[in-house]
């Protein structure tokens, strides 16, 4: 039910944000498409924690500013690497083990790694990630511990994170 309400709320906000009209005709069309979408989502059986992840929105809202900060920091490193007169990089492949348990948390962690410039998730297999990094000294497995912990806490909840 919570997933249903979350999806409903998100869709209403999306429709109003996109159209901005409040005439009966357009609101009626909105309600029609909303009902259709909800029926289809129910029949496709995708109303679960991955299809409507709005329940974890608060945890993610706490995680998001930290992620943005990391992205800005990493951007600065890669911009300097791009513009340095002499190319000075040390690419490396690292194997990580994540503490995230659910698929959604793993996706969040892997996407956070990919979003931070300088590191790309190459492969996920079970709880092991293969990460390609631009700087060997910046992409040791310890460097990802905090991101791992934070994304696990944001998505899996407090109980799951060690």
């Amino acid at each position: 039910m919570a997933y249903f309400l979350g999806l409903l709320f998100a869709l209403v906000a999306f429709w109003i944000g996109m159209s901005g009209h409040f005439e009966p005709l357009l609101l009626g069309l909105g309600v029609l498409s909303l009902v259709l979408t909800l029926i289809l989502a129910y029949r496709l059986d995708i109303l679960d924690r991955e299809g409507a992840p709005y329940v974890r929105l608060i945890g993610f809202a706490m995680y998001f500013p930290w992620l943005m900060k990391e992205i800005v920091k990493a951007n600065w490193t890669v911009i300097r690497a791009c513009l340095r007169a002499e190319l000075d990089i040390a690419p490396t492949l690292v194997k990580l083990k994540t503490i995230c348990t659910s698929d959604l948390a793993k996706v969040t962690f892997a996407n956070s790694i990919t979003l931070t410039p300088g590191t790309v998730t190459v492969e996920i297999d079970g709880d092991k990630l293969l990460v390609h990094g631009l700087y060997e000294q910046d992409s040791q497995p310890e460097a990802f511990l905090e991101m791992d912990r934070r994304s696990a806490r944001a998505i899996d909840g407090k109980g799951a994170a060690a």
Partner: protein
Amino acid sequence: MSDLLANLAQFFEMVRYPAGSALCLVGAILCVIGTIGVMRFPDFYTRMHAASITDTSGATVILIGMALMAPGWLIVAKLVTIFWLLFLTSPAASHAVVNAAHTAGLQPLIGRIGKKTDDEEGAA
């Protein structure tokens, strides 16, 4: 208090176009920097890192600049939607491309490239 708020609103009205334009310009420069990185880096995997500047900071800064110049909240809502779309899809796309290269057996360059090897060559 209302006087101060009115002043602030006036200040914002005055400043938002120059600030928005400046941010758009900064974003464009970041995209150019990303392109320079794509040209300069030696192999596929390192080029992906340079390209990710373009789709994280470049796109975000341009969107913030456009949001500052937007005529109403509706445009801001649409820009936020675009930001979310980019935020969710660009890592998936990068991961798909890199994973495809890895699965196809492309070996990444590993180890220090640049300065240090030059020194070693000079010493030898």
